[in-house]
């Protein structure tokens, strides 16, 4: 998908954004689980579509600005997890506009750009935190005796909590085999080889492809 021509990517991004931010905005925001788990991720995905697929060599070396870009995405996405903002966006047009624009441009774009340019340790850190955050939020939303959002019923809050717990469990299931397969060390070895070969002026392409296949958090 990232290999599409720029015009196609922009058209796909605009169409995706318009679908969730304009056409289906109200139905998606009517239910808490759709708001948090469909609209918000699709807004992020719309922004990610704008970023072209990186050249293979990019995936073998960390970019110095990748941590800053990642932090932009993490801070912005964390802000939109605050019940106050999620709730407030429903009744405040300025906040709603901020949500509809910040998620694609301040989460989707920097996350998609930075992900292949991060060190494996940084990517693993993000994935591990996503896992723990899903479980924590899931338990909180599932067990909280009070509503955290005035605009949604407690039953909807519990549904979202359950969905977060299921997503956390699925993430764990997806990662467990790789956690214990030892592929991380193979990947690190491959990276080291690529780095030395690149230094000697030789192509890194074959090993870069190998690293993409083996690294658990590698982006497509």
């Amino acid at each position: 998908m990232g290999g599409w021509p720029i015009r196609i990517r922009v058209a796909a991004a605009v169409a995706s954004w318009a679908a969730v931010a304009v056409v289906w905005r109200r139905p998606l925001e009517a239910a808490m689980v759709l708001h948090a788990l469909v609209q918000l991720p699709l807004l992020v995905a719309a922004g990610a579509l704008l970023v072209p697929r990186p050249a293979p060599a990019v995936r073998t070396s960390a970019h110095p600005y990748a941590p800053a870009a990642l932090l932009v995405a993490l801070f912005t996405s964390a802000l939109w997890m605050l019940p106050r903002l999620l709730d407030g966006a429903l009744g405040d047009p300025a906040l709603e506009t901020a949500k509809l624009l910040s998620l694609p441009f301040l989460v989707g774009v920097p996350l998609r750009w930075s992900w292949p340019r991060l060190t494996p340790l940084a990517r693993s850190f993000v994935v591990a935190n996503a896992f723990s955050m899903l479980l924590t939020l899931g338990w909180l939303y599932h067990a909280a005796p009070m509503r955290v959002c005035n605009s949604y019923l407690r039953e909807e809050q519990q549904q979202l909590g359950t969905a977060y717990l299921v997503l956390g469990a699925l993430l764990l299931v997806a990662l467990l085999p790789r956690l214990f397969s030892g592929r991380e060390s193979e990947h690190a070895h491959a990276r080291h080889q690529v780095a030395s070969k690149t230094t000697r002026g030789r192509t890194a392409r074959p090993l870069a492809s190998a690293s993409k296949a083996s690294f658990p958090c590698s982006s497509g």
Partner: protein
Amino acid sequence: MPRAATAVVVAAGIAGFALATDGFRVLTSEGARRHAVARSPRVLPEVLLEDQNGSALRWADLRGQPVLVEFVYTTCPDVCQQMLSEFRALVETASSMGIDDRVHFVSVSFDPERDTVSQLRAVASYYGADGQRWRFARIGDPAALQETLDAFGIVALPAAGGGFEHNAAIHGLDAEGRLARIGDITAAREMLTWADGRSGSE
């Protein structure tokens, strides 16, 4: 430069969180409305209420003394019953403290269709509301009701079984009739103390 960029992002992120949480104080819109009111008392719209005796009531009629207000619907099976019981206990406490002539209590229904005057009168009688210091009231006009709910920050969502889910709190109006404090129903006594502190020497 990359480190400087990271530092700028971290600083901006922390500032963003401080802004979104009113200085790391609130995480929910319920917390935000309570904090906003405490920081800046809110003038209420002048709407017409109708009490359990069918008499007209306006917030302006109660000016000069603090008022504790709660929003309920009387067919509510759970939290509203708790709120009304808390109000009954507060009225009794105010009486035992000798301050029952300094504080007004108003239980406002946001379900005027079912909470007719006769229904309010029956429920008021059950809870011992005298119609003077503690009134039950309804707002019959839908636009005025919504305006009032918006001013107070009450969100009542239709729920299964024909009921509502709504934010539950005790609202304190100061002697000028402004919404100046919102407290939890589990800390009702604090709201009475707050009201007594604003009742002057009357």
